[in-house]
């Protein structure tokens, strides 16, 4: 038996493992009640029959980690007997594979040419081409939103229509009918509809397949095709579908139709989750699968939290009728004794508390997570800096990282600009100096400045050695490396595709002796990420641009500079080392599904603990199946939504906490703003009740 399996399964878990007697099982219950662990036991049983294949379906990659770990421990390679997928990856793969079936439906203007798949960023690139001229014509003028957000929210609407399953032509009307704002502002929804229609038209004309089209093509064409059905049902015998509540309705529809042809199915539903509702997740739709399964089981036991934490959770679920004791508060909640005025004081206090925990017997092995609605770069920096000063290792979870935040990638981008002076893309003096020091082994910033001489940032050209610099100030080996790099860059062929240029730059220069990427495996990974990012960008481009690699490369670098392409890759999944402190946004932490001993909740005054983010052009509830068409969305709905969201978040966090929660707030947040959100009120009420019961009032 492997290390992550339950030692003594309870009855529900035992039943769950039995895929013969429970071939079509819907298992529900809260987080940390052993559902996933039970599914692993079931998988273990299925694996005993090597001829049969299993599909593990999860809503997002992070949730697949227990399955990956389990297979690693069993020494089974993914792909033979077990395939772990998200529905979106499956959809994308199938569309690629069965393109001829789609082509035969003549949806696209050039059906027999290769499809070009769009990522979120490349979709934004094309949406910008449609929206920018509209803005010039005075459209969207009542909306106060940075452009990137404007593009992404329109795309989000389009995706929602596909995920939820309504025609994209109804987006504007649905949003507009729920909106109670003034008519002048309401017009913006027809602008949205217009942009959506144009975008879809453009995609169909140019064989571009964005996420919404992928889903629509899969649901409307592939899934109803006999050949495809035969293929996919033959592909897998068993299905384990974990966290079904975090998937959108179209996935539930597919599963509902797939069920009868599978030998066994286990659907696991977390009945207090649905954290991805802003991405279209629909727990209500997930529950419809229960009726289609032959058996249904419910887990209730909590395998993680201490009893006091469970008591606290019960209390917070019904605060009105709960009478918390001061003893319960003392056991479960850490609250700073002094009022914290400014944010740095809060960071100091958090660090101090962690130091105290670490000093306890066994404290250095305790798992700690620092959670906050958003992690700004400065928070990440300050907190890790201050924790590192007390010798604590930090692991940071950000949903995605920007390309330019990676020093290697930043260096490669700047060197690419040096090699392509005809692009006329500015390089600041500072960036130029930093890129040289990052590239050349032994070069310090002072000497990089000496080498740059009177470098012109508008005409980024690396000169031969500047005059007047005595040779004793720069050692000859550094001069040699600089000259080597410069000559290599200037001799490169502008028409060479960027990914090939980057590959050569890495292989022929930067990974060689005398340069900093030598022996640095991370730099190889980063280079590959940038190359892959360009490749994806490039295949989505117009044919004319694809044919002119110099222009394509220039467009890519410009798109990175303008922030249009900012988060092209997901950071690799990291398992948190036992002795490190995890810093994560609340939502990412919940989707990571990994319990800890102590949780630090930062900025409890923030509204980010519950409010929906994507506003004002999109709306996860109004565009969901659960919204009554034509009903208006008012403050009452907002309040109910926020309260439910907060309740879900609090509950989800406490289910993943073993011993104690530390709640922190400062009068002024990081940005110097006073915040008085609902979570703060919840704590204040809790304390007040405890104080009253202590005082006998």
């Amino acid at each position, binding site marked *: 038996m492997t290390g992550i399996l339950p030692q003594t399964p309870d009855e529900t878990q035992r039943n769950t493992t039995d895929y013969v007697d429970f071939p079509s099982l819907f298992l529900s219950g809260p987080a940390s009640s052993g559902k996933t662990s039970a599914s692993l036991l079931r998988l273990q049983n299925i694996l005993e029959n090597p001829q049969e294949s299993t599909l593990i379906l999860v809503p997002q990659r992070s949730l697949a980690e227990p399955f990956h770990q389990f297979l690693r421990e069993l020494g089974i390679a993914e792909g033979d007997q077990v395939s772990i997928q998200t529905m979106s990856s499956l959809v994308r793969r199938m569309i690629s594979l069965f393109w001829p079936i789609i082509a035969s439906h003549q949806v696209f203007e050039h059906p027999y040419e290769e499809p070009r798949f769009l990522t979120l960023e490349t979709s934004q690139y094309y949406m910008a081409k449609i929206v920018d001229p509209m803005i010039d014509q005075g459209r969207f*003028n009542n909306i*106060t939103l940075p452009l990137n957000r404007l593009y992404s929210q329109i795309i989000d609407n389009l995706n929602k229509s596909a995920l939820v399953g309504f025609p994209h032509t109804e987006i504007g009307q649905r949003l507009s009918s729920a909106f*109670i*704002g003034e008519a002048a502002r309401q017009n913006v929804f027809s602008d949205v509809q217009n942009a959506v229609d144009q975008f879809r038209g453009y995609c169909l004309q140019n064989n571009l397949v964005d996420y919404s089209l992928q889903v629509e093509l899969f649901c409307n064409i592939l899934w109803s095709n006999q050949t495809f059905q035969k293929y996919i049902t033959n592909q897998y015998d068993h299905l384990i579908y974990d966290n079904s509540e975090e998937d959108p309705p179209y996935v539930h529809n597919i599963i509902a139709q797939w069920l009868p042809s599978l030998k066994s199915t286990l659907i696991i539903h977390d009945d207090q989750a649905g954290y991805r509702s802003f991405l279209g997740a629909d727990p209500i739709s997930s529950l419809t699968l229960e009726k289609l399964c032959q058996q249904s089981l419910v887990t209730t036991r909590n395998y993680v939290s201490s009893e006091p934490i469970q008591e606290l959770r019960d209390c917070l679920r019904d605060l009105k009728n709960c009478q918390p004791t001061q003893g319960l508060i003392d056991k479960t909640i850490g609250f700073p004794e002094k009022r914290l005025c400014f944010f740095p004081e809060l960071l100091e206090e958090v660090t101090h508390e962690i130091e105290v925990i670490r000093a306890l017997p066994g404290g250095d092995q305790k798992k700690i997570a620092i959670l906050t609605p958003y992690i700004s770069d*400065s928070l990440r920096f300050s907190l890790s800096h201050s924790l590192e000063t007390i010798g604590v290792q930090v692991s940071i979870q950000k949903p995605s990282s920007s390309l330019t935040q990676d020093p290697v990638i930043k260096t490669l981008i700047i060197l690419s600009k040096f090699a392509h002076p005809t692009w006329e893309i500015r390089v600041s003096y500072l960036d130029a100096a930093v890129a040289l020091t990052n590239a050349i082994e032994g070069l310090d910033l002072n000497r990089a*400045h000496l080498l740059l001489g009177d470098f012109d940032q508008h005409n980024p050209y690396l000169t031969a050695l500047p005059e007047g610099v005595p040779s004793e100030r720069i050692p000859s080996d550094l001069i040699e490396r600089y000259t080597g790099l410069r000559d290599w860059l200037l001799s490169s062929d502008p028409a060479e595709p960027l990914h090939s240029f980057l590959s050569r730059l890495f292989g022929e220069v930067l990974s060689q002796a005398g340069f900093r990427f030598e022996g640095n495996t991370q730099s190889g990974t980063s280079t590959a990420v940038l190359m892959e990012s360009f490749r994806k960008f490039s295949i989505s481009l117009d044919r004319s641009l694809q044919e002119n690699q110099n222009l394509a490369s220039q467009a890519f670098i410009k798109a990175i500079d303008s922030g249009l392409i900012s988060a092209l890759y997901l950071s690799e999944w990291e398992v948190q080392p036992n002795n490190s402190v995890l810093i994560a946004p609340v939502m990412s932490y919940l989707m990571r599904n990994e319990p800890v001993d102590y949780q630090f909740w930062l900025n409890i005054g923030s509204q980010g603990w519950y409010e929906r983010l994507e506003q004002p052009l999109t709306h996860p509830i109004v565009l969901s199946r659960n919204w009554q068409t034509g009903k208006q969305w008012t403050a009452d709905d907002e309040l109910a939504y926020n309260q439910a969201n907060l309740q879900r978040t609090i509950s989800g966090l406490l289910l993943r906490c073993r011993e104690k929660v530390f709640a922190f707030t400062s009068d002024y947040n990081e940005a*110097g703003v006073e915040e008085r959100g609902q979570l703060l009120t919840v704590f204040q009420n809790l304390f*007040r009740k405890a104080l009253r019961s202590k005082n006998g009032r």
Partner: protein
Amino acid sequence: MDAKPRLRPSQQEIMNYRSGLMGISAVPGSGKTWTLSNLAVKLILTADLDPDQEILVVTFSNSAADNFSNRIGEQLRASGLIEGFGYRVRTLHGLATDIIHERPELVGLSNEFSIIDEAESNEILKDLVDQALENHYDFLTSLLSEDYDEKSLQNIIKNKYPDYLLKLAKNWIKTVKDKQITITQLDEWLSEPDTNPLMSIILEIYRGYQAALNYRGAIDFDDMIRYALECLRLDGDLTRLLRHRWPYILEDESQDSSKSQQEILATLVGEDGNWVRVGDPNQAIYESFTTADPNLLKAFVAREDVRSVDLPVSGRSASAIINLANAMIDWVQTSHPNFAIRDALSEPFIQPTLPGDPQENPENRPDSIVILNRMMTSDQELVFLGREVKAWLQDNPDSTVAILTFLNERAADISGYLKKQQIEVSDVLMRISETTRFSAGAIALILKSLFDPLHSVHLARCFEVFYRHYQDDPDLWLVVKSTSQLIKQLENTEDYLYPLDNDWFEELETEDLYQNSLEMLAAFRQAIHRWHAARILPLDQLVLVIAQDLVLDNAELAVVHKISGFIKTLLENNPHWSEMQVLDELASISKNSRGFATFSNMGANFDPNNFRGKVIVATAHKSKGLEWDKVFLTSANNYDYPGGEPNESYFSEKRFIADRRNLEAELFYDLEAMQIEHAGGLMLRSYDKQNSRDDVARERLRLFYVGITRAKKSLTISWNTGTFNNQRASLPFQYLSRLVNND
């Protein structure tokens, strides 16, 4: 709880408040903040609030909000209750932001909208004004006076006119927003014949301005108010929810509220709500640069359904000063030669405290009132002030003293002169918070050295900033200074920072240096290495890394965070800026040329008692809410305090505008007329320059009154003949001089 404070009868009446509408007219020094915070505490303790309900206290400024929060918090702690629970203290703008955050999409915002400060708003307008001047050159220059030769005219067009138009546009946009007039409405109104062509141009600027804000995902301060109102108007559920959340609203400084601000509160109160408003219409001195209107409070207090209470008793000033202030109210109301402005000041008169009051008035003294009716030039007045202040401080070395004037420039002159006379002066009230100045400047110096690491002078300055916390220790500071001199003399900085064969540091070891010097140099070099390594980061993050290595207190660190956010916004809005341009912006914050929204806890809570024995120089505007033992109210001439008399010159009637027209007042008049006509009404009065002059005169009378009522023990008032040596003593000065000097 502590022993109950002794209340004056008028304060007791307020403390008896249970529910409904109450309007309180308070006089200067009557303890209105104290009374209102006591009332808030009483309501928190006694009103039957649900857990999700709060007493809402609304104030005008951040510092007042902090003041309230602290007072309420202290009293609740003393009562064994949790601080911060059951109440919310907000400025009106803070409240508006809270409301918008409930339903941002109703007004086309995301919940991450940002708020631009005045400096940034000016930057946007500046470009638009330049563009307008280019596009409508003929029309706009036709508004200029023909009394200038071509060269002078070009000089005006290049230098003065853009600033003038910017201010015109800014104030007009502010008013349009306050009146909640939409761009669509303006388009419609201005498409009709015979409308003001200048207004069409300003509308074009307004349109461009809003587009620029949209692009930035930002709103300005005036948008906050109108959007909050729009949210409340559109979503009845929201209004209902907020009425439940805030069953009591206590409002301080109500005389400074504008119509829209008042409307927000009125909407939150609803028909049967509870609203206590405290203010002093005689201290309404912000009309010129805000949309505040003191008549709103007067009208509220006069309403039948409002319980009107006066807070007339003040223990602040000696009775002679109180009598002078009261005499001024009486004179304005009954005898001011300009009938139109006799409503500038209103009752109640100030009453001294009764014997046994916790705050008894200071004793009268022979020099309680000095009104120097002597014609002096500006320079002569400086000499007079220097002499008098010196004499006062010799006799009263431990007292608080302020010199108040009208114009910023004059305050700077006075301050400069006194410094030359070796008199200890602080102009802290005129500047942004010291902490911000320091941190922004310090960071700018460090960044400068990082951006140009070859420059030894920059490196030496950076060294001093790194060890600036030693400033308080003369011995250590001497070491810092002398070591910094060594760095300054470095020929090649890399010999110290990144030595190869010739290690400067090693050479130093053999020299006779101060103890600690080498240690300091070693630690500094390590920090520089760290900072150089961090240069890969975006600038805003680099700043935070630097801050971790500096010895800063929490308030300073918080400011660094703010500066970091500021840099991030700058770079987001100006992606093509070079690092040097960002550096220039930082330097300008530290040089005070650019306002910077600081934390209200710092600087804003100015306490004159911390400046005993020094002279505070400030404008009368900045003195509001403060008090000093001795006050010099200066420059009381008819330029600073015009009375609406003939031959007076007005700031808003520029010489370079043809016929000295007041274009701003004309625009406001036309706007009001259009709004009334399109609402089906008729504008009864016609445009008259005198109306706007009277508005100015009213406000200056109140400013004069504010100046007088800052003094506790002694008040001196003087006047000068102004820059062109042609001004007279102002009317209130003349009257008070006659009263006091019998001349």
